[in-house]
């Protein structure tokens, strides 16, 4: 099955949270996902939480995902909230 690419927005914060959620829910419901975080500059608790909920949804559906690119701000924030392990940054990194 084709891999779907999710390009995370530059600003993953509360101001853009609803749009990001809509983007996540609009993705195909099956197949692997490549999560491209290379554009992410700004992230807050709301953005991280959405990403976490998305990854948990993929895991619960038995779908795989991988990380494309790196975003220091995203990793730092995920580490602060202690959810970096739940996001499996390293595991799926390309």
């Amino acid at each position, binding site marked *: 099955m084709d891999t779907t690419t999710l390009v995370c927005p530059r600003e993953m914060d*509360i101001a853009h949270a609803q749009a990001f959620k809509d983007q996540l829910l609009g993705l195909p419901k099956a197949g692997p996902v490549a999560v491209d975080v290379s554009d992410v500059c700004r992230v807050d608790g709301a953005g991280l939480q959405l990403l976490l909920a998305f990854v948990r949804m993929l895991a619960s559906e038995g779908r795989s995902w991988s990380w494309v690119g790196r975003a220091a701000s995203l990793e730092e924030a995920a580490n602060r909230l*202690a959810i*970096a392990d739940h996001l499996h940054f390293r595991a799926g990194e390309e």
Partner: protein
Amino acid sequence: MTDNREMIEQLRAVFFEEAEDGLAIMETGLLRLDEGVRDPELINSIFRAAHSIKGGSGTFGFSDLIDFTHCIETLLDRMRSSTHPIDSETISVLLHSVDHLRVLLVGAMNDEPTEEGLTAEVQAELEALLGPTTASAGKAAEAPSSSTPGQLCRFKIRFEPGRDLMRTGNDPVLILRELGTLGPVRVVAGLDALPRLDGLEAESFYLSFQIELETEAPLEVVEDVFGWVEDEARIEIEREPIESAAAPAPTSHPAPISAPAPTPVAAASTPASAQDRPAGPKPSAASTGPKSPDAGSIRVGIEKIDALINLVGELVITQSMLGQIEKTFDMTKLERLRDGLSELERNTRQLQESVMRIRMLPIRFVFSRFPRMVRDLSQRLDKQVKLTLSGEGTELDKTVMEKIGDPLVHLVRNALDHGLESPDVRREAGKSPEGHLEINAYHQGGSIVIEVRDDGRGLNEQKIYQRGVERGLIDAQDKPPTERILDLIFHAGFSTADQVSDVSGRGVGLDVVRRNIRELGGHIEVTSSLGIGTTFTIRLPLTLAILDGQLVRVGKQTFIVPLVSIVETLEMDTKLVSAVAGRAEVYRLRDEYIPIVRLYDLFGIKDAQTQLADGLLMVMEGAGQRAGILVDDLLDQQQVVIKSLESNFRQVQGISGATILGDGTVALILDTAGLINFASRRAFKSKGASEEHLAWS
């Protein structure tokens, strides 16, 4: 970067506004404590206000404010736990501290350090109340639960953000990042409450955290990290000392973070003694001057904004309806067109009123300074004064309000210094030893009326009359009515005070008060009864931007007369016209003689009616007097937007401004009070009146 800077500037502005509100809460609360109110919630509200100021100061790095507010907090904390008495001395020191906080805030706002000596002086007052232990040990030692600075402790923190935490502008990432600056942190996230993606509200927060922090920072510093979210989250903090003073091994973290090196918290948050700080430049006069945190902004109630939005909606609907008519217009739709235009006019007027209401603020903003002022002054003058404020919700234009503060302060100071007697004198006069000062505001017609009333000794009419004669303001032969004698107190340099005090009595002020009020388009009058009291009544326009006007024609010129000043308009019976001093004319209107002003003569207008019998006499009232102006004809009535003649052209006596009419022509707005004054002077002044005229200069 620019966006960030702008955002920080906006947040700073909000902080200063809120800090000003906080100071008002503190001051009002302290005054209520001083009155004997002993409600624990009152001290809590004062404490919360101080705590918010401290929290905001921390966010923006105003260390002077943090340190100083912390001392205030400590004292308040002791008061609420009944370990420090709530007495007059403590309240005075706290009020003084509130004043100093205001100075520090102005300094912070202008990026100018406040003079060290000032802070040291007030802080010494606080520390004298707090006792030597606290004074020397600073914030870390005053609470029994505090840890000793320098002692390594482990803090176990349970942090459960509420669902709305992020909606209030807070972010757990920032909070945990700040906590990380205190020392090594270990965090475990609780994900149990996180719903599936489709059931998750994007702006709600569902995670919780179990945190372990090892730091030498005292408990208060750790608590302060959560200071902004204490109402939005469940926070439990436990502290346990770590036996070994050696630095802890770095805490393993799930992933590498380029965390900033732990900041030595004790150095950052422990208040340095005032003497230790480098001396900064003295704040300039401007920095401690009248600049107010809200000088460039206005807070508007949400209901006013909603009303505005509703009206704009109505306007759009009406416009759309008119657009439809226009597309298929024929004469059968004329009636609908008329209805639509009439609806448009109604919408526009309501919209205008709503927009004007946005600038209207309750006069409470001015009144709020008086309880404190009366308390301080009455203590200084050794008088007992009860202050009653009423009508604080009465709204008036922000610009008017900003300018009425100083005149009111002057009147209140005068009332306290000269109006109200000392308790002994009052007892001797058979009065209660406690004097009563009442400040009241209410709407009347198109104006706001403010009364400042005291039950003091009253004005001595005879003394004022004699002083007026001595100064040549009254002819010794004249016997003017009481109101004209009392009016002398508004003359420059006129004072009957036997003693000049630093509060008032130099004869400087009431003339300025009247001038300021006149500049606002208002007037002030005084009534008084010897031994009973004095009342100053100020009447001001609600707004300076728009007025309801009567358009009148004089020759080919159109003038506008403020509707509120028109008493009546009549055709003259020439038999009732008399000449005074050979030139000035008066008209006998029932039992009163009113001076006649021929506008065409004053303003040099040709082709106007010159015969009194052919024109109309418009009787106007202003500044407590009446006059009649001769006009050719009455035209329409309409609201006009006032344009300043002074800033667009030059000052013209007898004219208060100009406006642009619907047909594009400029019409001048008559200065009612100025015209009446002129007419009265010309009609009743015995000498030199005939030479007097209004000038276009």
